[in-house]
């Protein structure tokens, strides 16, 4: 019987009736496979957005992580954030995240396997799950990536993660402070990954822009008097 079964399967495969599940997915519409991200960040992703089933790593910047959730939650997707008790929800709302579709699990339990179970449960129902990777061991992480792939969810890791499709980090941070308040931050986000994303991509954005959202860097309004270097020297001179 096993032999017969194998023969039958190989025959079917040869005739084109049987294929890998991934090939079926690839025939569907791009809009269904990709969750949207804000316009300034879209250039970082090979498909112009977060690919369902993918794992994306964000290094160092919480606001970058939150900005990835913004467009998708505003469009009706649900997002969960696990193991980040210090998350600034107000900043998330300002970045455009629909906080009524943002579930928070601040304390997913002490043990690594327990928190992996929580993440797995959330991957069943959420389009986006962000995890602080600190406490997870590598075998759990690989299993969770596989689960995200199977469920068509996007797994976002805050911190290192094995087998990531894409890694994002912020460089060239430059704050603007207009004397009354912190105004905006210019950053260059670098994306580097596997496959189609092997070539590093860069995007200069305002994260956050003066209204708290993500803005394209062309709006930066780089007036000499607005830069912190020059402004701060003025300020220090005045104070001294």
């Amino acid at each position: 019987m096993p032999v017969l079964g194998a023969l039958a399967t190989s025959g079917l495969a040869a005739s084109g009736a049987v294929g890998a599940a991934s090939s079926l997915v690839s025939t569907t519409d791009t809009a269904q496979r990709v969750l949207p991200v804000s316009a300034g960040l879209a250039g970082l992703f090979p498909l112009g957005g977060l690919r369902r089933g993918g794992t994306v790593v964000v290094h160092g910047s919480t606001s970058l992580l939150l900005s990835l959730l913004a467009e998708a939650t505003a469009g009706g997707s649900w997002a969960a954030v696990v193991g980040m008790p210090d998350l600034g929800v107000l900043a998330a709302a300002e970045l455009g995240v629909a906080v009524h579709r943002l579930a928070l699990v601040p304390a997913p339990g002490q043990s690594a396997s327990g928190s992996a179970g929580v993440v797995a449960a959330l991957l069943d129902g959420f389009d986006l799950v962000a995890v602080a990777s600190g406490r997870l061991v590598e075998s759990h992480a690989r299993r969770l990536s596989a689960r995200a792939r199977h469920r068509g969810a996007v797994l976002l890791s805050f911190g290192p993660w094995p087998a990531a499709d894409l890694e994002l980090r912020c460089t060239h941070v430059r704050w603007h402070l207009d004397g009354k308040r912190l105004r905006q931050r210019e950053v260059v986000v670098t994306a580097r990954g596997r496959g189609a994303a092997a070539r590093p991509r860069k995007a200069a954005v305002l994260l956050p822009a003066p209204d708290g959202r993500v803005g394209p860097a062309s709006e930066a309004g780089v007036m000499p008097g607005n830069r912190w270097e020059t402004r701060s020297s003025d300020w220090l001179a005045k104070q001294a």
Partner: protein
Amino acid sequence: MTRRLVVWCPDWPVVAAAATAATAAGRPTGVVAGNHIVACSALARSAGVRRGMRRRDAQGRCPELVLFTDDPARDARLFEPVAAAVEELAVGVEVVRPGVVAVPARGPAGYFGGEAAAAERLIDQVAVRTGVECQVGIADGLFAALLAAHRGQLVEPGASVDFLAPLSVRELNRPAEGQHRAELVDLLRRLGLRTLGAFAAVPERDVSARFGADAVLAHRLASGLEERPPARRRPPPELSVTETLDPPVTRVDAAAFAARGLAELFHAGLAAHGFACTRLGIHASTEHGEERGRVWRSAEPLTPAGVADRVRWQLEGWLRDERLSAGVATLRLEPDEVVEGHSLQLDLWRGAGTAAADERAGRAMVHVQGLLGPDAVGTPVLGGGRSPGERVRLVPWGDERTPAMDQAAPWPGQLPAPSPATVFTRPAPAAVRDKAGRTVGVDPWHELTAVPVEVALAGRPPMRVVDIAGPWPADERWWSEHRRRARIQALLESSEEDSPIAVLLMCENERWTVEGMYD
């Protein structure tokens, strides 16, 4: 028309509230909800306090008034012993609301030899068992019996219409029983229909043509008829819902959690048949085989939240009962009486196309609640406040999303956008120093006492200050505990990378902490 016996405990919210606080004995008491008096004791009434009065007016009339906040769960919990005491003498007890139980009058009247004897026995029984004063009324139909209980009357069989006729039409507005008819009553009085008899004399057809469905119900009550026509539907047996609780429930918060899930299931089952429940039977059995059951009656068809509330109240009542030797192991909800549930369908536009995603996410969150406990997962809600941390409240999934503080209120000293992306739940200490190495403070005019030059975060090596913004003053509760607070945003030169880091620093009584980080 069934004869009904109603046991009514006057001013129940006040009695329940006073029972939890020993200080209230012998003093005028009242219960407030939303700044209005919803119930008051006889002493308070004699001092001029009335229901619906504003809190300040009531305190003006009666300065020694002791006020409690409204708490339906407390009312229900403390009422359970009264319902149990009535049940010892009469079968078929229905809780109309905390403070009022109804039983069919025939059983106790036959057993104790007359309605008057039965009423007397019940009053004695409640007083002896629970120490609560109550009044009993007997009449045809629940509405007439309730009004009879308010007057302590026994209305002869068939005389209910005559009993109701001279009473004021105001009796139709019963906010405590969930029947809000203030507008209708006002309208009727302006039309010259001042008594229930005058209203009942209007043909039902004209009432329905002029006033709508709720007025028809009120008209039926005024005419001494049952609230609903007798053609009620007998529910098919499979609509009752049974849940085995493993592990058995012994704590009140766990009971609330179980109640919510079961209520949703129960309501969904009824809704699938086009029904809604007006009389809900709640039955529980413990690990040791003890059985408890209670019927709750509601004037309005019960919503999922209404079912959950009643189950929670009932479980709280039982769990506080010392006679229960173990936790509740199984819980059964039975629809004792159902009506057409068309008015109760969830609105069509809720979620606007994202309903499937909402449901999937909701199920995942319930799963996580099962793993970690009901408080472990929630959605945040934004409210008012000064610091970024104060303005966010995490609401456990399934609870009502209400902010901790009013967003519309003025909040002087509120920080402008952008907000820090990291807000520390436990702020770390920081040191802010000037050129000479002294700690920078905030003077009474909310200005910094010196120019900050370096900042050390959580015991790490100090970093040079590039620029600062602020301070934002936040003097909170200066009348009780003096807390002079001020916040500044600081841009620091990081030694590791070339990129500067931005932090939110808070100064309280010369001590600095780092509240958030703009990362």
